């Protein structure tokens, strides 16, 4: 009798979990998962045990209590008698304001610098290179502090505008640039100003419609219709006409030196300007590199082909290169926007009351609720960052290469 050894079948033995390559990876993954869960369970139970030992508990009741402190920059109504919750919302709005404005300027500066860095002009090219390297390689906190210090030291303070022998004066009598911030005239909307605003909106729609019509004419009939002068006319004439018809309902509130400070007008605080400016130029250096990478990713054949069709360099960039480069630029741009939003939490360095300054700063200190406020802060930044990602991903999907 010959005994043939059959291939092993069925019989599952425990040792196979380690020895059999089919199961080994599952075994290790399972062990790692258990270890991870155990580690988090330990940290959680340790936290609860320690809080209990210290006689503390987790409670969000403090959010409903009066905050008791004042905030200088308020986008919504807020007094020291408002709740901690409202103080947190004021801070959140301040964070969003600085993030949105800085994202905008960073994008504009970044795109311009990125394009200029590829210039054939040696000087421009090198200057942009120096800018990028300097700003990219120094921490943003240092930039914020430097800009704030220079801002405060260089610009005149309100007291220098005072008196007969004032050493500083307002620009055009309506703009004041002081070390405490910039003061601008503020438009005041009187009764009837709604019509002026509506007229303005209508003329914007009109300009858009007219340009569409001009394009249609060009494509359908090959006729060039002038768009520049009609657009300018549409922009100004109806609004100005309506403005006078309604009896000049919109007036300007000029800032004026009263007491210690300028009063009236729009006040952009030094902390806001320094923070926004620092975040913009710091992040713009990174965006410039993204833009440069995106443009370089488009083969030179495209440029040459466009040039041979007779397009001017500006049009080559706008119509051929940038639309394709955007596909490469957008994904890293998203993370730069997220960086701006998160870096805005350095605001307290210059006394800007963002959400880290109100909820994570003063509220945390006055109530002592460290864990609760930090959890709230984390949730806030997480929600904001994920929202930015979501919006930008939608945009990315609209510009990315459509594969069919």
């Amino acid at each position, binding site marked *: 009798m010959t005994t043939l050894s059959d291939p092993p079948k069925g019989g599952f033995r425990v040792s196979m979990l380690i020895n059999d390559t089919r199961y080994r990876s599952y075994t290790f993954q399972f062990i790692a998962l258990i270890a991870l869960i155990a580690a988090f369970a330990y940290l959680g139970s340790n936290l609860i045990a320690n809080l*209990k*030992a*210290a006689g503390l508990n987790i409670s969000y009741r403090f959010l409903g209590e009066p905050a008791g402190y004042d905030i200088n920059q308020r986008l919504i109504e807020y007094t*020291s008698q408002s709740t901690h919750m409202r103080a947190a919302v004021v801070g959140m709005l301040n964070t969003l304001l600085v993030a949105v404005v800085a994202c905008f300027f960073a994008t504009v500066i970044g795109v311009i610098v990125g394009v200029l860095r590829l210039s054939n002009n040696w000087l421009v090219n090198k200057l942009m290179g120096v800018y990028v390297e300097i700003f990219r390689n120094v921490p943003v906190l240092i930039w914020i502090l430097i800009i704030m210090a220079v801002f*405060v030291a260089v610009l005149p303070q309100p*007291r220098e505008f005072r008196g007969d022998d004032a050493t500083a004066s307002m620009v055009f009598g309506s703009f004041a640039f002081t*070390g405490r911030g910039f003061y601008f005239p503020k438009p005041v909307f009187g009764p009837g100003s709604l019509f002026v605003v509506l007229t303005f909106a209508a003329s914007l729609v009109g300009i858009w419609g007219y340009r569409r019509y001009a394009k249609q004419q060009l494509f359908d009939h090959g006729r060039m219709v002038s768009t520049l002068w009609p657009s300018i006319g549409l922009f100004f004439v109806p609004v100005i006409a309506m403005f006078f018809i309604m009896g000049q309902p919109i007036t300007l509130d000029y800032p004026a030196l009263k*007491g210690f400070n300028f009063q009236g007008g729009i006040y952009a605080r030094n902390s806001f300007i320094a923070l926004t400016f620092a975040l913009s130029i710091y992040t713009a250096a990174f965006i410039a590199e993204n833009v440069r990478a995106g443009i370089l990713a488009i083969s030179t054949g495209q440029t040459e082909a466009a040039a041979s069709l007779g397009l001017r360099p500006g049009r080559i960039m706008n119509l051929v290169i940038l639309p394709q480069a955007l596909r490469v630029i957008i994904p890293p741009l998203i993370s730069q926007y997220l960086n701006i939003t998160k870096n805005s939490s350095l605001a307290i360095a210059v*006394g800007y*009351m963002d959400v880290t300054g109100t909820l994570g700063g003063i509220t945390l200190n006055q109530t002592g609720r460290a864990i609760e406020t930090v959890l709230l802060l984390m949730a806030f930044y997480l929600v904001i960052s994920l929202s930015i990602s979501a919006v930008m991903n939608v945009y990315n999907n609209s510009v990315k290469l459509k594969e069919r």
Partner: protein
Amino acid sequence: MKKSVFFGAMTVASLAAGVAAAGTLDDVKARGKLNCGVTTGLVGFAAPDANGEWQGFDVGVCRAIAAAVLGDPKAVEFVPTTGKTRFTALASGEIDVLARNTTWTFSRDVDLKFEFAGVNYYDGQGFMVPKALGVSSAKELDGATVCIQTGTTTELNLADFFRTNNISYEPVPIETNAEAQPLYLEGACDVYTTDASGLAATRAAFENPGDHVVLPEIISKEPLGPLVRHGDNEWGDVVRWTLNALIAAEEVGITSANIAELGAAAGNNPEINRILGTEGTLGEMLGLSADWAKNAIMAGGNYAEIFEKNIGENTPIGLSRGLNAQWTDGGLLYVPPFR
């Protein structure tokens, strides 16, 4: 078997974490060093001198505690804290005692679970303005820009003061005293507000102190004192009675000049004897050596000596004793008897 060891270890670990809050006295003795939380730098109260040695009124308290517990006033690790980080540092056990002109308030004592060991300086919040502004009262500050240290009681007092007087202001929150100085001097704020003692100390550090005035209004009560974690009463007692010993020493006339003589043998004043450990067992009751208070007083002298050396009238800060005089001199310093 293995499992039980694992769970056992986990239980021990979580228990140990819970117990760490208690037994600070033993921890300090075992470590051989006191971790003392101070400011990041306020001349006269706590600031490193030219040699990098910490000097000041609050530092004196730290050194006295270290001398009482360890017998060595130099056995202190100074941990600079800001208004924001101080409570976390204390609650987490990073420091054993916080001596950082911290105001004793209800919520800090009760809600934040700290224990104030006493008051070493009775203070109140004031305002400093440049003389050139021509302001003589805080009520004339309508519309002023006010620099203020964030995370302090001064922030809340300020809001209350301006609200009750129905005047407006623009707060500029600042993290530390050092950051506030250039902003105030450059004129980015009209007013700097903090505790009156802090204003005096800040002004003393200016190039031209005479160009700035401290307004007469004191808008709050700010009893400043060292604090420890709630629930560790033995350690709280050590800190409380070390501070009391410094104040009592001034009251009964123990100074760094005569302490060696008074402490050598029991004299005829029983209170001095009990403080210096030549009579009775007060040190033993605290879990310290018999000469604990003697060491504490020898570290920097009694309360009056520490005060005069760091913030008194002959220093650039130039604070008078005022409320901080002994009760026998019309002040508020009044310690319970040593017996």
